[in-house]
C-alpha cells in the first residue's frame, strides 16, 4: 500500500492517491491535497466535504444527485468549487474513497 505525507503526517493512500483510511484525514491535510489539485479551500468546500464524509461514513452512495439534496450547495456551485471532475476531486480532498457509482 502506498503512503503519502501531507502537512507532516504520513497517510495510507491507494495507487490513485485516494485515502484508504478516512480517519487519518484532517482539515490541514485537505489544504495540501487541494493545493495539488489547484484548489484553494473555502468554507463552502469544507461544508460539502463534511456532507460527503458523513454520507460515506453512513454507507450511502456518493452520487452527483446527492449534492443537490445536500442542503449545502447545488450541483452548479459544486462544479465551480471543484472544476473539472468535481466528485472525484472532492472525495480525494475529503479523504474518502473514489465513488463507485456511475451517477
Amino acid at each position, binding site marked *: 500500500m502506498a503512503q503519502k505525507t501531507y502537512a507532516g503526517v504520513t497517510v495510507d493512500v491507494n495507487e490513485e492517491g485516494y485515502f484508504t483510511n478516512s480517519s487519518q484525514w484532517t482539515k490541514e491535510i485537505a489544504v495540501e491535497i487541494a493545493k495539488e489539485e489547484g484548489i484553494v479551500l473555502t468554507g463552502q468546500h469544507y461544508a460539502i466535504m463534511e456532507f460527503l464524509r458523513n454520507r460515506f461514513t453512513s454507507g450511502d452512495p456518493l452520487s452527483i*444527485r446527492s449534492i443537490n439534496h445536500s442542503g449545502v450547495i447545488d*450541483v452548479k456551485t459544486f462544479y465551480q468549487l471543484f472544476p473539472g471532475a468535481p466528485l*472525484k476531486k472532492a472525495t480525494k480532498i475529503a479523504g474518502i474513497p473514489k465513488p463507485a457509482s456511475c*451517477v
Partner: protein
Amino acid sequence: MEQKFPIKKVSLICAKGSIEDVYASLIMANGAVMEGIETNLFFTFFGMDAITKSRMDKLHTGVVGNPALRLPGGMRMPSLLGIIPGMEAFTSWMMKGQMEKLDIPPVSEFLDLITAGGGKIYACKTAVDMFKLKKEDLSDHVCGILTIGEFYEHAGGEGSQIIFT
C-alpha cells in the same frame, strides 16, 4: 489512469425514446460531464420525447419484441404477455423504481444535473419539423435546434468522439 490521448469532448446522439435508450444517453452524458469532458447531447426522432416537456418524465419501456426482458425471478417475459393492457405501464414503473434505488433521477432532473455541469442539450431540426414541435414544447434545457451540419460543427475538435447510443 493517465492517457496519452484522453477524450476531451463527446457528442452523443439519442434517436430512440424508450426508458433504456434515453437513459443510456443520459448516463453517458452525465458521466462525461462528471469527468470534466465537454459534452453535447443531441436528440432526434423518437428521442425527442426525452426533451419534450409534456413527455420527458413519462417514458416507457417496450414490452413486446424485447427478448431480454425478464419477469421478476429471471424467467423470460413472453411477448404475448406484453399485449396485456397495463403491462407496459407496469414494467416502466418497475424500471423507474429500480433506477430510483440507484439514485438515478427522472429525465428532467437528470438534464438539470448535466446542464449544471456545463453539458449542452440540442434538438434536431428535422425531428422538430417532422413532429411539428415548437420551441416552447421543448424543455428549457435545450439550448439550440441544430441541423445535422451544425451538429458536426459543434462536435469537432481534437480528442472528440461522436457516440450514437
